[in-house]
């Protein structure tokens, strides 16, 4: 899992629900790096805007058409990928085994405008491979969820799509570098989406295994955080999810 991918998937993991439009804005960090996060969800589409080392990028997922568009606004280029193909690639050569998820409310709450966000202790594990070693990837920490706020109805269609077997939410870089984690985070989305809307989270990622690579990975800290500071259910323009016509397309 790349730092960036982890951070944004953390956000989408926590971004579920019903039928119209939703906008989420906040910040995510992965290790020392941090980025603004903007996510728009409309029907079966999701767009994420973020910056990486000072360059602006967008990821546009169309779950109905199973298409992913990666936009580099600096170079004005766009890469188009098929989500089904990515899902197949992620499943090839990774250990079998499903997500083990445990979500326990801690009783702590905090407010985000009119939402009441409840803290949950999250423990998630999934078998993975590090080089030639078998290992387990763990995510542990706190996630903040607002259960059934009025805006949840806005992403109803999206949540329905996330429950399908072919639902896959990952970018090619993550599929290539850490396919098991890419699968894991898609599964996490599937599990968490119906529970509510996200307010934030602080998670530690680590590997466990007996081999030297796992031992090294265990010594390299990876902390992912998300802080959401605003949301809106205002209607979104369909053009927001279109690939800009002036961009060079690479398939």
């Amino acid at each position, binding site marked *: *899992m*790349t*730092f960036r991918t982890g951070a944004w998937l953390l956000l989408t993991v926590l971004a579920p629900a019903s039928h119209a439009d939703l906008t989420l804005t906040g*910040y995510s*960090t992965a290790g*020392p*790096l*941090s*980025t*603004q996060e903007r996510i728009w969800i409309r029907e079966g589409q999701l767009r994420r805007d973020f*910056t990486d*080392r*000072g*360059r*602006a990028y967008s990821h546009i997922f169309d779950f109905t058409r199973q298409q992913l568009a990666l936009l580099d*606004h*600096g*170079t*004005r280029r766009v890469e188009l990928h098929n989500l089904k193909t990515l899902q197949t690639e992620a499943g090839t050569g990774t250990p079998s085994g499903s997500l083990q998820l445990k979500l326990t409310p801690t009783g702590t709450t905090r407010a985000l405008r009119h939402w009441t966000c409840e803290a949950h202790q999250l423990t998630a594990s999934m078998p993975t*491979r*590090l*080089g030639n070693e078998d290992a387990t990837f763990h995510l542990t920490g706190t996630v903040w969820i607002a259960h059934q706020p009025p805006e949840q109805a806005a992403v109803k269609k999206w949540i329905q799509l996330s429950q399908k077997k072919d639902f896959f939410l990952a970018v090619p870089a993550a599929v*290539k*570098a*850490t396919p098991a984690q890419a699968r894991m985070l898609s599964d996490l989305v599937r599990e968490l989406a119906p529970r509510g809307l996200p307010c934030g989270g602080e998670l530690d990622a680590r590997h466990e295994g007996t081999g*030297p*690579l796992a031992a*090294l*990975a265990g*010594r*390299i800290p990876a902390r992912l955080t998300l802080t959401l*500071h605003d949301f809106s259910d205002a209607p979104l323009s369909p053009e927001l999810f279109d690939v800009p016509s002036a961009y060079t397309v690479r398939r």
Partner: protein
Amino acid sequence: MLFSLALLWTAASGLFGMDIARALKLNPGWDAPGSGSAIAAERLRDELGRDAAPVVVLFQPTPHGPQRVDDLAYRLAVDAALKPLYANPDVESVHTWYTTGNAALRSHDGRLTYAVVQLKKGPDEGVAAYRTLRSSLVSRELDIGLGGELAVYVDVREQLDHDLRLAESVSFVLLAVLLLWVFRSAVAAMLPLIVGGVTIVSSIAWLKLASLGTEINVYAPNVVSMLGLGLAVDYSLFMVSRFREELARGLPKDLALHITLRTAGRTILFSAVTVAASLFCLFLLPQRFFHNMGLAGGISVATAMMTTLLLLPALLALLGDRVNRWVPPFLGRERDTSETGRWFRFSHFVMRHARVVLAVSIAILLILALPVQNMKVGPADSRSLPPTAESRQVQETLAQHFANSEIAPVMVVARTRTRLTAADSLAGLYTLSTAIAALPTVTHVSGLTSLDPALTLADYRMLFGNPEAFPQAAAALDEFGRDRSTVLFVYFTGDPNDAAARELVARIRALPLSPGLEAVHVGGYAAFHLDYLDTLRTHVPIVLAAIVGVIFVLLFLMLGSLLVPLKVVLTNLLSLSATFGALVWIIQDGNLASWLGFTAQGALDGTILVLIFASAFGLSIDYEVFLLSRVKEMCDATKGDSLKSVSTGMQQSGPIITNAALLIGVVLGAFAMGEVVFIKAIGLGLLLSVIVDATLVRMLLVPATLRLLGRLNWWAPKPLLQVYQRLNLGEIEFDSRRKA
């Protein structure tokens, strides 16, 4: 005919040169080719694709905005301000306290923060991108200021443009008034201004033409304006004065012009060759900056000479006696033109007390030169700009409120013998980075093998041996390496301009080369300055020797004497020492700073010293040449009567030299009014040099030494004398009265 051609030439030059700014390079060309910092910069650009200029975007709270960097509202305001940058194709990267967690980007008191924006340089060194960036940054909640090297460059450039326009306007007005006072004729007074204007326009055109074949920096037009205008006015003064003098003797116009060209014209030619030769010695320094200055100086001198020798005679021929017209009634009084006037009497006084005068004048010069003992040579920094300049304010805020600047790390470019991730390569890089991290003042090192202080060499071997398992490895390779080259960023405490930063560079360079590494080059701001100062240290003595040698030979060829050129060179060195002493007292130590409107620099920029030496050494010769040519002429006429020859020479040249010094002083003074200390110091240095030469040297030292040396003045060994006579380059004084 010639006049019409000159008009056409000027119009064409004006049209051709009007967009010169586009042809000039912002990069001054201070890199010493082949130096460690220059090689590092090349490798960073060519091998690692790093050719960006860092810009500091400083955020400060306003009374009504968020006050704490860690407040969400503060972050939202920063992000909103930076938002236009993320889709800006000129922006390579933006790093903030919020995106990196780097504590260096947050002020001690938590109220200020800055973003580091890397801008693509492009052919204009990033100026256009910087200006776009500047105009796109707006915030209602926070004050935004821009700083960093590129910001300083742009501010300097904009200030120089402003200063140049102001200096030219002020010069022309003051020159017009002074010339009217000197010539007591509006027609005569206009001539040097016309020659000055044509010289500037033509020089700029020549400069643009030269820029088609070589890179020329943005400072060159200032040099062209300053030297071109000053010299053109001086040369015109010599020429017009001589022409009017000959007319006053009752000679017809054509003969008066002929004599003027044979005498004053020859002196001007010699003077121009001397100044140009002195400036061309700058080509002995390796940096393009000095080549540019030598070229710009040479072009302005040559153009001033050509304009004076071609256009001015045409104008004088057209005007004839009308050159004396339009006499303002309030300036009608005739000057003292008798052969035994006050200059004659003054020189008699000096020569009667030659030993005392010599001792006193040398003592005064030595006292003026005393501060040279404390001279410190260092790099110019943002203090060179006026206190109101945004980039300077940002620099001062960074120094005051932040732990250490993140924008000027030492950059170590290493090339490995095999691929970067091979075991030997990683061992070499690891040894290098740990050795650097252990050096004094280093706060941290950032590079392939410096990702985490807890990781060992074995860890890095495993990390980079399995990049597919460790995204950190792939990200680090993408960030720091290409093929066999990689860069390490070395962050340190203190000011990058300080000697301590240069000491750190020297220490890094002194580290042994690890077996896995093929080459290591240290670059960055501090390394550049270290190399620059080292280059000056090794090359400046050669340049100074060349200038002194060239001037000595030229003076011999003109005067046919060995002792006089030697005396001229020695007095010039003494006079320049006094000038440098005054510069140390003023620019370095800050005396008269409030009066002259600048901040004490704490050190003198080596560039300024070299430029002043090369320009002033040539310029100083002017007055002595003019005086000595008259003295020599009288010496020949009186068969060696030193008393009479010196007194008459002083009387004949005195008013003209005084006026010339006054006029060029006005031009240099106007440039010294500029707000950029670099140009102010050059203008001031040259002005001081002219004042010292026109007063102490010309009025006291020269007549006293000429008197004391007597006939020895004009001595030369026979073989050399034969060379002198065969070449016949000395001034030929036309005996106009006899001809008439």
